[in-house]
């Protein structure tokens, strides 16, 4: 399950370095990694903080970058909705992109099943430990990390393998192709909103395919 570790570690390291190099300083960088805990939103807010943007602008921007988590939380609701609210919200705060991906791969069935909450908590802990330890290393050793190696691309490559492993059927293929095309086409949008556009396009494509499949089923002669 920890196959994604090296890619995650590379991104954690790069994010840690980016925080100190933006001028945050060690203390505030540590505060950021242990509270914000959302790599893409952190990276998006660094230049805004450095340029002294209004605090509300920074928070609103981070929320836009985080909008995909709103959609993910509807997925988590199905599996974690039975937990008491306190535990649900704590888990929700800790569950990132990779957690949902790994969770979906392991629990194929619909709805809530026994053991899901424990699996989600274990995954959240694993991702947290890898991310925070490498991020802290990046913060403390920022001058030693060779950024010119393009380490961030290691994260991209491991995401590529994870994406391929999710292409289980035709629906997934179509969703992935639609999402890739939309994300590239909408790349000029600010605040990583191209990711949200791509998710919406893929979900709509999936809905249309399901609808078309149903129509085809209805037209087939019955025996």
């Amino acid at each position, binding site marked *: 399950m920890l*196959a994604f570790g*090296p890619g995650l570690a590379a991104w954690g390291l790069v994010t840690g370095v980016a925080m100190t190099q933006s001028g*945050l*300083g060690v203390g505030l960088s540590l*505060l*950021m990694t242990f*509270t*914000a*805990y*959302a790599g*893409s939103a952190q990276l998006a*807010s660094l230049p805004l903080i450095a340029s002294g943007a209004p*605090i509300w602008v*920074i*928070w609103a921007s*981070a*929320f836009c970058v*985080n909008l995909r988590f*709103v959609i993910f*939380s*509807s*997925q*988590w*609701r*199905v599996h*974690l909705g039975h937990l008491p609210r306190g535990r*649900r*919200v704590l*888990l*929700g*705060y800790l*569950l990132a*992109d990779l957690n949902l*991906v790994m969770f979906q791969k392991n629990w194929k069935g619909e709805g809530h099943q026994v053991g899901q909450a424990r699996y989600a908590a274990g995954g959240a802990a694993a991702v947290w430990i890898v991310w925070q330890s490498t991020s802290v290393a990046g913060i403390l050793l920022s001058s030693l990390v060779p950024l010119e190696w*393009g380490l961030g*691309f290691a994260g*991209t*490559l*491991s*995401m*590529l*393998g994870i*994406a*391929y*492993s*999710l292409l289980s059927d035709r629906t997934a293929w179509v*969703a992935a192709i*639609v*999402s*890739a095309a*939309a*994300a590239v086409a909408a790349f000029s949008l600010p605040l990583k909103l191209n*990711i949200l556009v*791509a998710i919406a*396009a*893929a*979900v709509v494509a*999936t*809905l249309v395919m*399901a609808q078309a499949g149903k129509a085809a089923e209805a037209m087939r002669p019955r025996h």
Partner: protein
Amino acid sequence: MDGSTLPGWAVTALTILGLGVVTLVSRNVFLWSRRELHFPERLQRALQMAPLAAIVAITAPEIFLAHGHLVESWRDARLLSAAVATAFYAWRPGVLGPLLAGLAVYLPLRLAWGW
């Protein structure tokens, strides 16, 4: 509250704590309510594609775009490395193998050839 009366580091610390709240809120939008939430089943199924779509949407521009424009030449370290990682995946599916194969192409091209 007037931010100008606080020292700079305190304003930044407040900003960062707010970012933590943003993460807490955005990841809990549909987990917060105590009421039963029911999504239409077809939408629920379609939303299962959201994580795959998100991962692809984060990855694709990193491979195909340079400075916001489509990569114009195949002589690009990221493009070639992604192609090698893809070929490796077709041969041996996994996450670690394609990552290492891709890096084995990417690092020399970038460091030695400067692509």
